[in-house]
């Protein structure tokens, strides 16, 4: 069997061929075209011209078939092209004349292929990036009543919200004008909103708590003069974000102790008045990065395609379509497991499970303020997720490699995770658990070996497995301390 596509031989993939040398393809069964069986017709398919010959056609005959013959018939039927139907124009003018006869079109068309190839070569080294270019014709959109695609109301063109105050004189009412308005000194919103967001990130709550709404329906600022001062400072610095972060983290307010007396807590439980330093559970991404950093596993490479760290099997499959290209999650090997969390691959229908547990959003709708919940599922992540177990193991190895007696190793872990020495009482509590772990793994080498097998990285062969297992648990304790999880 030979197949031709638009008169040219096409490649054929033979899925099934049980025909013996003496067999014939003659059969009583119906031949289906464009479908596999009775039930699954190809959608949106129509047949224009079906002919049956009693002999095999030669290649040059086939080449004429799709357009040349048809065009001849069309011309014979109706010589005046102005009276042709759209279909006839398509076949005779577009496909036959421009496609096969007109030299200029043919040469241009072949040049398209060359350009495509060149473009492909250009994009081979990295994904193409989308950029915005203004269209030559004005864009428009129809207002849909309650979003109903069938209930079109008026047509609208680009503009800016009417309520924006202090519109710069002469600025066009488009994106360009909006940009000018945003940065103009006459309106404070952009600067206030920006500094409030950064403040929120650093202090855990914004000066205006409803960081996504600084309008009349939002919360009132706790320190309006400060907010204004910061906004002006930020704007006058030339919108220098890095400098602004430095301003906040070096401030006396930020550097206060987070400790609170009962009286302070009773008067200002949410620390709205900033009487003490910020204290809040860090975001999932920060936690994962911190654990990897403490373990010495973090790969600090910048940029590049997304990576896929550990994730239990089955999570994507439960929601994906069978034909989806993100149906099966295959974790990376090597450095992809240890990159910063900002590089983690994001499937919005099923975000990274361990990050979602820590309130990461699906990224489908804008999130100006992430919630901060406190669930037992989070403890399961930091205790049992292979990412965290491996980090604990590597951190434990670092403590062992640092040498010294048990007390010195604990001090090492305290510095690596809490950045401070232990109190004697803390040391005593940790020694107690460390002894329990030692007893366990000294007596159970199989358990030690099993624990060491978690994660892709290999254990340090110079260290005794039982000791590594023991210190994996001690390190895991540090990684699960409130003080480690909390800013």
């Amino acid at each position: 069997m030979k197949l031709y596509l638009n008169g040219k031989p096409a490649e054929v993939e033979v899925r099934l061929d049980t025909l013996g040398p003496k067999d014939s393809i003659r059969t009583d069964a119906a031949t289906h075209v464009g479908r596999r069986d009775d039930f699954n017709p190809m959608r949106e398919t129509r047949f224009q011209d079906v002919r049956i010959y009693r002999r095999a056609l030669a290649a040059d005959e086939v080449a004429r078939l799709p357009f040349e013959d048809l065009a001849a018939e069309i011309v014979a039927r109706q010589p005046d092209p102005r009276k042709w139907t759209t279909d006839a124009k398509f076949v005779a003018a577009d496909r036959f004349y421009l496609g096969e006869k007109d030299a200029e079109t043919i040469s241009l068309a072949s040049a398209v292929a060359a350009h495509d190839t060149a473009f492909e070569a250009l994009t081979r080294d990295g994904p193409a990036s989308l950029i915005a270019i203004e269209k030559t014709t004005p864009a428009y959109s129809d207002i849909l009543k309650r979003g109903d695609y069938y209930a079109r109301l008026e047509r609208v063109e680009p503009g800016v919200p009417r309520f924006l105050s202090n519109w710069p004189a002469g600025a066009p009412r488009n994106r360009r004008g909006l940009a000018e308005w945003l940065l103009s000194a006459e309106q404070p919103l952009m600067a206030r909103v920006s500094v409030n967001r950064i403040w929120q990130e650093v202090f855990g709550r914004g000066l205006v708590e409803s960081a996504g709404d600084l309008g009349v329906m939002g919360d009132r600022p706790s320190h309006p003069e400060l907010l204004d001062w910061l906004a002006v400072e930020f704007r006058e610095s030339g919108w220098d974000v890095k400098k602004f972060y430095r301003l906040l983290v070096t401030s006396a307010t930020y550097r206060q102790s987070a400790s609170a007396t009962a009286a302070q807590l009773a008067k200002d439980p949410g620390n709205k008045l900033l009487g003490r330093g910020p204290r809040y559970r860090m975001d999932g991404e920060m936690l994962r990065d911190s654990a990897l950093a403490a373990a010495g596993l973090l790969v600090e490479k910048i940029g590049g395609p997304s990576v896929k760290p550990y994730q239990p099997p089955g999570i994507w499959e439960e929601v994906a379509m069978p034909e989806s290209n993100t149906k099966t999650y295959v974790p990376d090997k090597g450095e992809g497991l240890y990159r910063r969390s900002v590089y983690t691959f994001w499937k919005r229908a099923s975000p990274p499970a361990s990050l979602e547990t820590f309130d990461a959003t699906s990224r489908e709708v804008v999130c100006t303020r992430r919630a901060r919940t406190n669930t037992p599922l989070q403890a399961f992540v930091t205790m049992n997720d292979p990412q965290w177990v491996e980090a604990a193991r590597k951190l434990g190895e670092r403590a062992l490699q640092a040498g010294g007696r048990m007390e010195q190793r604990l001090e090492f872990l305290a510095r690596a995770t809490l950045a401070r020495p232990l109190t004697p009482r803390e040391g005593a509590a940790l020694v107690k658990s460390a002894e329990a772990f030692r007893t366990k793994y000294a007596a159970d080498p199989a358990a030690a070996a099993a624990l060491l097998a978690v994660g892709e990285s290999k254990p340090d062969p110079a260290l005794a497995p039982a000791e590594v297992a023991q210190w994996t648990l001690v390190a895991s304790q540090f990684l699960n301390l409130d003080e480690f999880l909390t800013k």
Partner: protein
Amino acid sequence: MTPNDNPFARDHDLCSDHCGEHPTVWDLPHVPLGLKREWLRLETRRQFLGKGVQALGWAGLATLLGRNGVAQAAESAMATRPALVPNFAPKAKRAIYLFMAGSPSQFETWDYKPMLYDMVDKDLPESVRGGQVLTGMTASQARFPIAPSIYKFAQHGKAGHWVSELFPHTAKVVDELCILKSLHTEAINHEPAILQITTGNMFPGRPSLGSWLSYGLGAINEELPTFVVMTSKMPHRTNVQALSNRLWSSGFLSPEHAAVALRAGSDPVLHLNNPKGIDGDVRRAMISGVNDLNRQLFERVGDPEINARIHQYEMAFRMQTSVPELTDFSNEPASTWDLYGPKAKEPGTYAYNCLMARRLAERGVRFTQIFLRSWDQHSNLPKNIRLMAEESDQPTYALLTDLKRRGLLDDTLVIWGGEFGRTCYSQGTLTAENYGRDHHPRCFSMWMAGGGIKPGTTFGETDDFSYNIVKDPVHIRDLHATILHLFGLDHNRLSVKFGGLDSRLTGVLPAQVIDAILA
């Protein structure tokens, strides 16, 4: 964590508006009076929400921090909405939502249309279609041949409901059901339609039904999730649509109200199990050490958050025992397996999930949603809907029966249905044995049972083609209003300030509780 950290619980002290150095909202110039009133109303409510809602996970942590139904309700006796106490005495305490994703045809299930047998392969009259926009999948069809159900119907139960022969088991309990034949929606494609019925809005980002119940009512069992979702293994791999976490997300509510996905197999809750090499004793010692240090930290720092952390780890440890108990079916009596069928032993099947749903209901999980996919029968409907019915009929019947005999059906609402209906004409070629059906938003069937629903009833009627509704239309928001009503919640009052609106599950258009189907 303090109540104030909840993003939706703004704890503006009303007093500070009046006594503080800032002008009160009343003193602001250029603010219309109506807006000022609105502000005042909101402020009042925020106070109550601030006290009522905790940004905590399993509500168990909340008890520790003083969340208490009585204390709250007493404090806010004059408030419009005391948190976590129903507006009025509920009929349903729990719900199990059997979500037939992809949308089963109403013709082969619950909406018997005998007239269609007289019109086989005739074209759907244009007057019936009435300008309905079709999907790209059938819009180009030259004709719309009417396809009656290939499956026979018979009357069952005292109520004499017509039930398709595909559901011989469910037919036995049809007297428990209230069959709704007049659901309708605006959406004609899966994604907007499924979002609309799971979250009340066809755009993503809204809280799902289960999240609203969690938000409005809290947990029954504070040691288990309030809202659980389970996806089921598919009996076949055609006619499948994608699901996504957005169907059970908490939207603009705190993430604690999102569903916890209960997974099939040995790790039903993500990372529940200790890694190999760590046994229960080691874990206990590890957590004891952690909590010892956390207690010392609390003495120095004083942050109540730290106590919540201690509680969080203790609860995690308890869950390592209680969740396996939940998923361990070995103590189920033999009668269970007779009832649910052998597939209930295979984790992740629909039958398994139905049995799990009963166990969750017994233990006080507020809302369980089971998804069963591949009902999207555009083609090969006769063969594939049979497969789906065979997969789901007995377990559904078993769940209803089991709930009833254990006294749980009384206050457990069971809901069955998809996201829209299907066409009375065939998508693709109609033959004597085969046809397909395209999406149809104008009418579809669902059923509800238990939890205060009037048993053995039907509600709503469609025309002879099940194309248009002729009596008692039920929009999805009416369905939602009714479900909330059964839980003792007034859908107009269960709202959260979001996006400049009092955002509700039922949205901004009027929704009506369907009184006629309430017991």
